[in-house]
């Protein structure tokens, strides 16, 4: 190619490039995400959004770890071996504005409420626009998940309903908010009213068949039983629990397979169980089971964060045949005397049939 040809070629290339700069030239879209406004258009999109909500629930700030520890550690059933290994403020109650405020509960749950709100908002919009697709199951799951999340939030940040329901609960957005929004707290009573409304709206939309890793009708009813129980409405709690017991088709583990159930997924007692799969939300060293391990057990990064407290063990020791001894291993302080909880499964069971059954017995 001689020099003139190169010149001509470069002019052509430059002109081609110039003419390529049409109107869309400055509208560059990412290839790993989509503009949120156009993301939910079909049932398939709604399914993807529900997967996102379930996955976000497995976050280590929520059901993946901290939310479970919150009750066990602050309640004193678990203790820590040494300060500074992590999350010790849950045991020492050392929370301040600038340190150990565990804002992860707030931020993670509100983030997931945004996902639920966005799905509900978009399904309602599509329906209003005349879509003929059947969104029922996904709308039902989003509403139930939102109710469960507000229930968790108001229990952490508000006074108990039975204690003082006119106290401040948590802010309660029901639609996606703009960045400038600063919604204020609703009362505990308002929160519970909304939780019940979402649950009762959702129940008829949900399938009754079992769907591993997702909420179904009985998951919704089981949550209703919990909510009513927390509110002190025992007859309503009983009705909801009995619906699960009589119609759900769940069965209790027997004494032998109770222990192995901790290492199995989606057992016969499991009503709502979140899947935590490898290469997904597999939290590895940030997982709940990792935080319950003895120091260096199976992995040198295991620091030995939490173990069963004396308070808990002394009560367990009252019955040497208690089935729960089957999931305890020796702890860091002593090789035999102080067994500790060993959590083995890679799913989190949030609603157990056992709980419904116990509640049922309680009411008899």
């Amino acid at each position, binding site marked *: 190619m001689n020099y003139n040809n190169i010149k001509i070629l470069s002019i052509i290339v430059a002109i081609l490039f110039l003419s390529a700069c049409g109107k869309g030239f400055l509208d560059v879209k990412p290839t790993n995400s989509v503009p949120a406004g156009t993301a939910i258009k079909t049932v398939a999109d709604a399914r993807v959004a529900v997967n996102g909500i379930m996955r976000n629930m497995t976050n280590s700030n929520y059901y993946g770890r901290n939310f479970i520890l919150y009750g066990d550690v602050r309640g004193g059933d678990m203790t820590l071996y040494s300060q*500074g290994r992590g999350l010790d403020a849950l045991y020492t109650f050392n929370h301040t504005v*600038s340190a150990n405020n565990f804002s992860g509960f707030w931020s993670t749950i509100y983030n997931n409420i945004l996902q639920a709100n966005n799905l509900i908002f978009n399904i309602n919009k599509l329906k209003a626009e005349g879509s003929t697709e059947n969104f029922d199951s996904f709308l039902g799951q989003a509403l139930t998940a939102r109710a469960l999340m507000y229930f968790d939030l108001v229990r952490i940040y508000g006074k108990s309903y039975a204690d003082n329901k006119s106290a401040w609960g948590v802010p309660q957005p029901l639609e996606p908010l703009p*960045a400038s929004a600063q919604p204020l707290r609703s009362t505990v009573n308002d929160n519970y009213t909304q939780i019940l409304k979402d649950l009762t709206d959702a129940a008829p939309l949900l399938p009754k068949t079992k769907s591993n890793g997702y909420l179904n009708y009985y998951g919704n009813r089981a949550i209703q039983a919990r909510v009513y129980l927390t509110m002190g409405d025992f007859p309503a709690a009983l009705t909801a629990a009995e619906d699960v017991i009589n119609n759900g088709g769940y069965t209790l583990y027997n004494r032998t397979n109770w222990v192995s159930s901790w290492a199995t997924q989606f057992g016969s007692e499991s009503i709502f169980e979140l899947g935590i799969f490898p290469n997904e939300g597999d939290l590895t060293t940030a997982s709940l089971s990792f935080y319950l391990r003895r120091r260096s057990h199976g992995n040198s990064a295991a620091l030995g964060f939490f173990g069963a407290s004396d308070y808990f063990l002394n009560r367990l020791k009252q019955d040497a045949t208690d089935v729960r001894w089957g999931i305890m291993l020796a702890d860091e302080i002593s090789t035999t005397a102080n067994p500790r909880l060993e959590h083995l499964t890679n799913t989190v069971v949030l609603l157990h049939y056992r709980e419904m059954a116990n509640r049922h017995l309680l009411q008899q």
Partner: protein
Amino acid sequence: MLQSRNLLWPVYWPTDYKTGLPFTARFGSLAQNNVYYDNEWDNTAGTLNISAVEALTVNILSGLTAKSIFSYNNSQIKEHLYYSALHFSGVAPVNGQVHELSTNINKMVSSTTLNYNKKILQHSIGVLAGYEAEKNLTDFMRSSGNNLPSSSLPTVVTAGTTNASAYNWGYNMQSFLSRAEYNFSDKYFLSASYRRDGNSRFGPVNRWANFWSVGGAWNIFKEDFLKESEILNELRIRGSYGTNATTPSGNYGWRTLLSFTDKYMEQPGGSIISIADSGLAWETNYNTNFAIEFGLLERRVTGSIEYFNRDSRNLLMDVPISMVTGLGSTLKNIGKINNRGIEWNLGIDIVRKEFLKWSLGLNGTLMNSKVTKLNRQGGAQAGQDIIWNDPTGNDARAQFIYREGQSMLAFYGFEWAGVDPTNGKNVWYINDPNSSTTGDFEFNGRGATYTYSKANRIIIGNGTPKMFGGFTSDLEYKGISLNLNFIYKLGGDLYDGAYKDVADDGYYWERIRSQDYYDNMWTDNNTLGTLPKLSGNDLTDPMQYSTRQLHDASFLRLKNATIAYRLPHNLLGGIGVRNARVFVNGTNLFTTAKYKLADPEVNQFATRGWEIPFAKTYTFGIEVSF
């Protein structure tokens, strides 16, 4: 969270002397035996750059030329990362892991300009107009394999399980530009420019913006009344005013996006990851500059003084938003910042003889940077404060606050009052805005407490120095030369986010502590200790952002020193060597600083963490040219 570190690891012997096997235990720390693990992984990277620039200039008329440039740059970065089944990142259940990464960076720029230059008598004019378009696109591809059959064959194809990822990102720009210049007999200069830029990093509302500038200069020395001056050899003043802009660092900051990283039970899952401001505007700087340049006494003394003032409006920053919205922060135009100051430099030739030359150079910048205006939330009187963390290293090593009227680098935290000599406890000033004596007790006449959570956070320091700069000395005597290059910083604070990790007073009981902490720790025998008593009973984790980690940032450092000898030509004559030079060079040889525990030369945020400090290095060399 996992903070206990064993800093002594690097000096450990790699094998267990009893068994002869490598140490893999971690002895209560989170560190690993690097001497051993270094052999259990592999990382290679290669970059291939291709660049093609085509330029075409056409002379249309006398003085009028058209120029078209098209450039294409491509960098292909290939990376291979391997962890053996023995490495802590590759142990069971991973059983060996290999990643092949490929990043392909493309940049295309097309620019077409028309240029007109003309000189008529003493008038020179130059006019330029043009159009530019730029396309940036990066392609990324990763393939990974776990469960490798053989440590001798770390390739993805042999792996038991594989996974992959691939996507691309980029941004585009378009500009229309113009410039006009005029000068009269090289004495008076005037210039003006105007450009209109469009950038895909902004939404359709504010995608295009206009920028302009004007400038002028006067070469006073060329005036008749100075030509005869015996003292002055050069005198020139110049000034300019204009705007330019900063774009957001992210490509899609104005878009509210839903991403698909939340796979659930082997199904795709999507979540909203941003609540964006689609009306994001260009961060625009309004720059004013005035300078005077001079040369005196046969140019033995030369120098310049420049005043600069930069107002940055519509500052772009990720700001905290109510988490009830679902997200913690969003990119916004937050307000206005002002930087102004004086930059000066001075060069003096002290000796200018044939065989002996000695010159000195001095320079400095006096700077003042302030947050002048912040967005008001719902009709509030004052702008809303923004608390932000030092982004360096993502380790939240220091905290700052943007507050109207305060420095851009205002450290935010508790005021640590020191140690109570009677019991060795940390004492914090309450800093109650209403009364200086409110508190659990009085300490040095001010309200104080042992519990930091009762104290108020305030602005505790300023990371902007009063003045910084350097000076040089160049001495040459008969082929032997000595060059010294100093840097200095005067005033301002630095925040040492690393020292607290080795000076923990007991909350992180299992940590290793520095000699300095033991030397200065309060004990029953050392009640004048400046650092608190070591106590495992303190449940309050007192390692907060506070003045305890804040120090005076002033320092002087010999950054570079070189002694060299240039061999005389008559020695080299016969052997075909044109030039030969022998030199010894040293960097960071000498430092004097107010803060003595760690390297005082800190980053732009005036903070330090666990990064490697500047090393003292020595270089010996011979330079020969033929």
